[in-house]
């Protein structure tokens, strides 16, 4: 005989239940796989249409400037000849236009590679010059940023990690460099370094050109301060965390702590700043080239191309438009990509 059930009892009658099917069991599983910080950030980045657009634009530009010199038979400093003869009619051609001599040569059955963006005032293929200009500008931007990254991170982490008086002195130096008008100092150093470097017969100097070396030197001297400040600030906040204390207590060396605990924690900020440093370096380089202190002739850079196009502005405005549009595109793409990276990887902005 079954005991009378108390109406207020919490006892549940098992007969009222039925077993879950396999399908229903699967629904209760945790849906998403666990992701790493990098994967999560990349997923966010790929959702940002502006960032994806700038990645595509940058990739297209990079592919063009690596592939184009292999296809186009002209070099950036070569004055185009037709069938080995000097062509006097090929100056300042419009895009896809042939000079009279080339026209005649084609009619005779010869083949002339088209001038995609025309030619410049000396009869050089403008497309390949713009391509090389973009190459130079991007390379300068990239290497200058890497230089800034290395110096800034080392300086900033030493200052932040050591703290105390060392930090104070190191940061005063940073303050002073920060308050110097950078562009003026760059121009000044470039003027000074040029005659000094010209006299040395160093093969590296000759290969790169004195102005390029100047640009790198001034970047190395001046532009790292922003990065150093940032890294120091990051380290000061990270340094006080418990896991650093734990690492110290088991006898980890400062270099190990910086490498294994601190740098990984501020890496996202460092990457974002570097990405935003590239357009500013390109800006500076094109500015210097524009006032005639950038790369040495006949090596083109986007700034120097824009500068030399100024002379024929009234008659051949397109020669200005091509490099100018390319500078704007590159800088814009890097800016937007940097912003996208910040939104995707900066943990502080996460919650928003």
């Amino acid at each position, binding site marked *: 005989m079954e005991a009378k059930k108390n109406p207020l009892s919490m006892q549940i009658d098992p007969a009222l239940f039925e077993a879950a099917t396999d399908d229903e069991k699967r629904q209760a599983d945790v849906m998403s796989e666990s992701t790493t910080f990098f994967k999560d950030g990349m997923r966010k980045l790929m959702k940002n249409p502006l960032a994806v657009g700038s990645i595509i634009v940058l990739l297209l530009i990079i592919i063009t400037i690596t592939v184009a010199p292999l296809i186009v038979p002209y070099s950036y400093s070569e004055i185009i000849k037709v069938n080995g003869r000097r062509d006097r009619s090929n100056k300042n051609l419009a895009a896809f236009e042939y000079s009279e001599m080339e026209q005649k040569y084609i009619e005779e059955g010869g083949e002339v590679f088209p001038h995609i963006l025309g030619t410049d005032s000396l009869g050089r293929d403008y497309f390949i010059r713009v391509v090389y200009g973009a190459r130079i500008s991007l390379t300068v931007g990239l290497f200058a940023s890497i230089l800034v990254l290395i110096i800034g991170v080392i300086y900033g982490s030493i200052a932040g990690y050591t703290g105390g008086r060392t930090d104070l002195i190191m940061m005063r130096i940073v*303050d*002073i460099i920060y*308050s*110097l*008008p950078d*562009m*003026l*100092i760059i*121009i*000044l*150093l470039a*003027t*000074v370094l040029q*005659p*000094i470097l010209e*006299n040395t017969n160093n093969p590296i100097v000759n290969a790169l050109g004195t102005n390029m070396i100047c640009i790198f030197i001034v970047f190395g001297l001046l532009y790292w301060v922003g990065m150093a400040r940032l890294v120091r600030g990051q380290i000061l906040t990270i340094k006080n965390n418990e896991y650093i204390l734990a690492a110290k207590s088991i006898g980890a060396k400062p270099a190990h702590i910086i490498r294994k605990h601190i740098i990984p924690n501020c890496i996202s900020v460092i990457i974002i700043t570097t990405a935003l440093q590239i*357009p500013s370096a390109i*800006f500076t380089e*094109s*500015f210097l080239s*524009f*006032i*005639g*202190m950038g790369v040495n002739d006949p090596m083109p850079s986007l*700034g120097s191309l*824009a*500068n030399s196009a*100024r002379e024929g*502005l*009234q008659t051949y*405005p397109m020669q*200005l438009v091509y490099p*100018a549009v390319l*500078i*704007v595109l590159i*800088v*814009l793409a890097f*800016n*937007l990509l940097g912003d996208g990276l910040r939104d995707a990887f900066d943990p502080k902005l996460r919650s928003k």
Partner: protein
Amino acid sequence: MTRYIVKRVLLAIVSVFIICAITFFAMNAIPGGPFNSEKALSEATKQVLEQRYNLDKPVPVQFVLYLKNLLHGDFGVSLKTGRDIKDTLFSCFKVSGRLGLTAAVLAVIAGIILGSMAALFRNGPIDRIIVFFTTLFTAMPSFVFATFLMLVFCIKLRWLPVWDASSKSLILPVIALAAYPTAYVTRLTKTSMLDSLGQDYIRTARAKGVPMVKVIFKHALRNALIPVITYVGPMLAYILTGSLVVENIFTIGGLGQQFVKSINNRDYPMIMATTIFLAVVMVICNLLSDIAYKVVDPRITLD
């Protein structure tokens, strides 16, 4: 407060001193002296000249003498023209100063208006347009924009003459110089305006029945303008360096053009004087904007 100002002033003085030192020693490091021209001077003449310009003394002594002269407002003599640099510098600065100040005022006013509009009509068509243009202008070097302006308005449309000494021709250079700072101020104003519109005191003001216009101008905008003040210093520095190219493009006889000309001429005393002069102007601007920031908002600690 006083301590902060004293500290900032000291830092500014140190910066100016370092700029003078860098300029002086850098110029001294260039091989060749001012009297090593093609026409060889006799040994005696050279000695007299070197004595006249203190070049026979050791470099540190020369530096001290140069600083002493600078403090007296003596910038030396241009190698190219032989004229007193001080006069050239000040007459050029008048032109550049007018250009730069106009651009700065334009940038701040236009930036604040556009920024507040973008914040108030957030995600609307006005905001979209403003965001598009600010993004574009922050990616455009001033020389590109200046030459584009010249191409469109002077050459294609022929609204303005390519070169004109009258004041009307300042329109394009001012626009070219102001474009980037305007975009930056717009961004700054927009972010801080959005920030302050979300604050509790705005809700309180709205709740007690203050009209929206009054809330915007009296509560939101006032607080939103604080970050703009900090940007004024860097903005003036940007405008000054930007004028280096803009003045050259529009052939305006200001400091920028003088600077580039002296670089091309390798007129070292002129380069030194212009660098130091521009640098001092920039350091002073930064100093003033930092102090103003602190005065306006005492909550802020910049250390």
